[in-house]
């Protein structure tokens, strides 16, 4: 019962807010309370490998093949926790008393709900459905509360994501239909077994893998389907960017891991070189573009999109180590991106700008904020001790045997990312105080009330960085099964 509870609680909160309860408090409590069923479910997973809710899957074709089955195993465990945590932090750092407060928090809750549902769904129909639930709230969040070219960004983001979703949908439909009629199912456990017993033909696998790659890839902002991401994140209000970059984007990677890899292993291998090319593009092209950003949010957007390349490297490594690294990096990236956008949000809320040249000297004015800025930057550039490094190392080791060249590129990406981040930190933190920073009313983070979301994310980064076992440990059997032909 704890699985549906995790979906019901945010929904209840949405209802309560709509009925007039205090938005921030309600949303925050709901997302905190939601961790309780999360804990219970995790306990179940750790004891028995996986837990389920809903009707048992029936392989035979029924009236409508989709079944509302929720499930959690070692792989979804970390994703679910990532979602829970980032939701709490995002809502915690969201501004109470913003215009149209009600709608704001409802939208945030809905994004979290969509992500949770997607990660908990065992059935591909609901898996897809839940992801889309988050689409419209994102549109509204960017459109109503965003900055800069918010209208353009909202449209671009939405249409892009929708397009990606549709291609993805094609892939899923194709996957379903290319199975023999008696064995069709949308349950990925059943699907996995079916495909393992009688693999799809190479041609089919190739097409499906390509469709899934493009579909999921768009959601993940794989080059050249990335261009919604930087601008979208730059324009989004901070909590929305935190949730989207931190959590929702992981849906695509999770899907690739869950669906594309096990269902179309040969096709995936066959298009591996294309993926390699694209991920190199992610790292080099977006990394270089990130160097040139003048706006901190844009920089974070590019850098966030850039790191996806490294995760993809883990995905095509074909080793458990690489996959585990990808998973760890997903978590790490989720946390660090969330932290980064949170810090950016705090900065621009205080100073009214996120142009790096207008900031400067922040470290003197707001040392706490600077500290978290440093944590985010360091995590993003893969500093040991923080989660991203653990993921990157595992990916490098896992992928080295198969793709040494790409590992080299990814390692250079670490350098690029360091260049970008260090420049940003230098511009924002060092030097004499700029007018925006020294202006009246610019203050450091105030007490525990403003600090805790950032601190929580930082601690999580540290925890995963030092004990990556918490992420890859439960997932290890699942990953091994994914790779067993």
């Amino acid at each position: 019962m704890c699985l549906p509870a995790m979906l019901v609680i945010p929904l209840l909160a949405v209802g309560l807010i709509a009925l007039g309860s205090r938005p921030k408090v309600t949303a925050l409590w709901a997302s905190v309370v939601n961790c309780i069923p999360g804990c219970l479910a995790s306990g179940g997973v750790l004891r028995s490998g996986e837990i389920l809710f809903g009707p048992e899957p029936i392989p035979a074709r029924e009236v409508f093949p989709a079944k509302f089955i929720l499930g959690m195993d070692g792989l979804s465990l970390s994703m679910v926790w990532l979602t829970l945590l980032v939701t709490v932090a995002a809502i915690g750092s969201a501004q109470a008393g913003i215009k149209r407060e009600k709608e704001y928090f409802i939208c945030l809750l809905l994004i979290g709900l969509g992500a949770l549902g997607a990660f908990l769904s065992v059935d591909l129909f609901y898996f897809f459905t839940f992801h889309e639930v988050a689409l419209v709230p994102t549109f509204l969040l960017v459109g109503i509360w965003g900055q800069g070219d918010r209208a353009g960004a909202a449209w671009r983001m939405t249409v892009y994501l929708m397009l990606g979703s549709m291609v993805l949908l094609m892939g899923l439909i194709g996957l379903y239909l290319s199975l023999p009629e008696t064995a069709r199912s949308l349950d990925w456990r059943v699907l996995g077994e079916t495909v393992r017993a009688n693999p799809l033909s190479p041609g089919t696998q190739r097409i499906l893998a390509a469709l899934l790659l493009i579909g999921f890839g768009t959601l993940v902002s794989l080059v050249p389907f990335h261009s919604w991401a930087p601008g979208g994140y730059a324009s989004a209000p901070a909590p929305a960017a935190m949730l989207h970059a931190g959590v929702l984007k992981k849906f695509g990677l999770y899907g690739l891991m869950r669906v594309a890899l096990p269902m179309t292993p040969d096709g995936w291998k066959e298009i591996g070189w294309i993926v390699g090319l694209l991920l190199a593009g992610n790292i080099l092209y977006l990394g270089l573009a990130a160097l040139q950003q003048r706006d901190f949010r844009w920089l974070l957007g590019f850098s966030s999109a850039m790191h996806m390349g490294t995760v993809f490297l883990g995905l095509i490594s074909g080793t458990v180590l690489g996959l585990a690294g990808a998973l760890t990096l997903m978590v790490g990236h989720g946390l660090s991106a969330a932290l980064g956008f949170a810090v950016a949000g705090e900065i621009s809320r205080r100073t009214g700008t996120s142009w790096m040249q207008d900031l400067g000297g922040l470290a003197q004015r707001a040392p706490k904020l600077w500290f978290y800025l440093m944590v985010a930057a360091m995590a993003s550039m893969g500093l040991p001790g923080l989660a991203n490094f653990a993921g990157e190392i595992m990916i490098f080791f896992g992928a080295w045997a198969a793709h040494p060249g790409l590992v080299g590129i990814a390692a250079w990406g670490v350098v690029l990312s360091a260049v970008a981040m260090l420049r940003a930190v230098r511009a924002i933190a060092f030097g004499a105080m700029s007018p925006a920073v020294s202006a009246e009313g610019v203050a450091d983070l105030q007490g525990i009330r403003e600090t805790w979301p950032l601190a929580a994310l930082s601690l999580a980064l540290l925890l995963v960085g030092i004990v990556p076992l918490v992420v890859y440990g439960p997932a290890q059997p699942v990953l091994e099964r994914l790779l067993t032909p």
Partner: protein
Amino acid sequence: MSAWFCPEILLTLAGVGLILVDTLAPEQVRRRTPLLALLAAMGILGWSLWPESRTLPTSWLSLFISDGLAAVFKPFFLFCLVAVVGMATRYRLEADEAVRGEFLALPFFPTAGLCLLVSARDFLAVFVALELVSISLYLLTAFHRTKPASLEAGIKLLVMGGLSTGFLVMGIAWLYAGAGTTEFSKLLLTQAGTGANPAVLMAAGLILAGIGFKVAAVPFHAWAPDVYEGSPTPVTAFLAVASKAAGLILLLRVFGIGAFALESMGEFFRPILLTLGIATVTLGTLAALPQRDFKRLLAYSGIAHAGFMILALGTGGEGGVGTVVAYLWAYLLASLPVLLFVNEMERLHGSTDLRHLDGIGRREPGPSLGFTLCLLSMAGLPPLVGFPVKLAVLANLWNAGERPALVVAVIMAVAGLGIYLTPIRAMYWEREADAIPARRFPPFLFWVMVMAGLLNVWLGFQPQELVRLAEKSLSPLPVLEAIRE
């Protein structure tokens, strides 16, 4: 005996009764005509849902059939009737208030025609039923005769309708000349085993043009935007939902399960339907994007939806037919509330321009929420009911291997998002409208819209009910089955 209480007869009697009441009854009763009309419509709807009531008088059975499809769709039209009558009670006739009784009674007759139409098994019956609908609609469209737009819409509908009637009758004539019969099952039998008969093909082409008019399929669509825009909004609803659905069911009966539904005819009709479908989807979607009048926008959006359904039909087979059935119900559930909302909006503002939506999301959160959900459902976004049906269309296209159509459908499904997000954007992003009306929406709208929105969500989340409906509508297909064997 109870067979004589079939909806068609009840509808006619109700219509006549209403007119009599309106003409003859004392003033106190006349004031209650709207309520009476609504009750009558609801009563008939309830009656039709009663399991025993859907058989036809036995003497009708040479022209009409009482099968699953008819059983599923008579309630559909009655549902529309309830909504249309409901809207008609709220529509402002201005100088023509004196004839509101007629305005309320007239929709009963075309509804009877539609009920006949869906159970027709003979082209002659189709013709008569269709004309009953058409002629009533000419009148209803032009009913608001103090409004030039209404009259213009009426005359346009009349000219185009007359043209399409000419084609339909010509087709029937050629059918007689070529095959000697117009009954669907006999037509199937005469074609079975023989090669394609040019006369029959030609007749089919002409009939297709006639039906295409009803469906507003490109290139027979041109009347739709103008007429939708000009008609009184309840009539727009009737045209957009009921009349269009009837056309599609006819298309389905003729090309999907009867008359020309043989496999051997597929090579002739499938390409045509697919081509029409592609053209319809594309034009409907693209032309809807720049619209500023809501009813006109809905017209194009309706064209696009018809295109999706035609595409599904073009894939042939039961899958396509079932998809159309489910799609129509989904379309009904999404578009009727939208029209209801628009009707109220028009009542407050006197026009249906999109600008009246500006900022309405804040002023009227409840109805706006339902409205948003319905619009998103039309956009085909999960978890709303529009999604599974669009999914079914795409799945059918994939299964049939219709790649170009699939690609177009996918692109247009994405582009279509723009159509529906535009009003949503206006509701939530934009500033308040310049002229805020003194009055607010009536309370009933809140409940109707919220319930409709939730219904859309629920069915989108659990589409099994729709699928059952589709299966039920296809349950007895005796003739086709016999011929196939």
